[in-house]
């Protein structure tokens, strides 16, 4: 696959990652506790910035780790069966997202283990320092591993086929795009927008976001199936 095509796949995968909501939920809650505790705007910005940096670091670490594991097993040219397995995984994750992503209650509670949700809730309330907010950012990305593993795996499969410099560019592109939703909420909170309005928008549009995440994965599967699997079979690659 050529470099623009590879970067397009990475960008689409990162957009799908950006549509997942756990980090945004934690950031909203963290900001609410911080404003409610009468912390200064500077402290609010410190906490939320540390949270976003934590989420970025965990995204880089996860994508790099998955890429490293794939390189160790398959070198820089993964066999067709790995692409087929990744496609199957993406279809499975897309169906899971359509069926389970949000809990069927009021609010924006997600289908993650209840104990982990309670842990994140309690940790968010207890977070007072930047280092704790950074750790919370790391945990919130890791907590969604069941869903983000699909876009991460596809991006890693594409990344390992690129020249070294483009691998770094791809890693940066994935990280920045996957953080877009978090960055938008961070800017809104930092500029004084009401948390109530942000949360109301999220709740009103949660089923749309759920549909878009699943549909995005299906589009990505179709593209990969056509380019990597059918392309290799009929000799286009």
């Amino acid at each position: 696959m050529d470099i623009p095509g590879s970067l397009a796949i990475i960008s689409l995968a990162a957009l799908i990652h950006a549509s997942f909501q756990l980090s945004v939920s934690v950031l909203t809650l963290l900001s609410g506790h911080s404003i409610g505790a009468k912390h200064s705007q500077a402290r609010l910005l410190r906490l939320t910035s540390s949270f976003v940096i934590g989420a970025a670091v965990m995204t880089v670490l996860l994508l790099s780790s998955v890429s490293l594991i794939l390189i160790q097993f398959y070198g820089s040219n993964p066999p067709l069966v790995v692409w087929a397995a990744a496609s199957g995984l993406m279809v499975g994750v897309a169906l899971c997202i359509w069926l389970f992503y949000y809990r069927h209650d009021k609010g924006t509670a997600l289908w993650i283990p209840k104990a982990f949700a309670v842990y994140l809730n309690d940790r968010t309330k207890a977070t007072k320092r930047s280092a704790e907010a950074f750790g919370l950012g790391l945990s919130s990305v890791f907590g969604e591993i069941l869903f983000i593993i699909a876009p991460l795996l596809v991006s890693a499969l594409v990344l390992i086929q690129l020249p070294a410099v483009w691998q770094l560019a791809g890693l940066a592109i994935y990280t920045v795009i996957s953080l877009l939703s978090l960055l938008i909420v961070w800017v809104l909170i930092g500029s004084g927008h009401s948390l109530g309005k942000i949360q109301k928008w999220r709740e009103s549009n949660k089923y749309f976001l759920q549909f878009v995440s699943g549909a995005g994965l299906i589009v990505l599967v179709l593209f990969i199936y056509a380019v990597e699997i059918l392309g290799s079979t009929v000799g286009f690659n």
Partner: protein
Amino acid sequence: MTLSVDVIKRGGQRQSEQFMRDKLHNSIVSTCLSVRVPTGQAESIAHSVCEAVIAWLQQHPEVTSQDIRIVATKHLRIQHPEAAYLYEQNRITI
């Protein structure tokens, strides 16, 4: 001020405790501040919501923390709908 009302905690896993007005007051103030309500107004809203909840508690010697949240939300909605929305969402955001 402490009423002699037993509050059963969420899920029934933790020990029940006596109703504490200050705890309710602080949580309402904190929610109001989260939606950028000025401190004085937040205190006044919290005072009025606490009074309404205490009036309701006079007829209920044993309640769950969820009951208190529902009653407080109902009265907060009259005073400040956006704060009531956020108060209701606190446990169902993640």
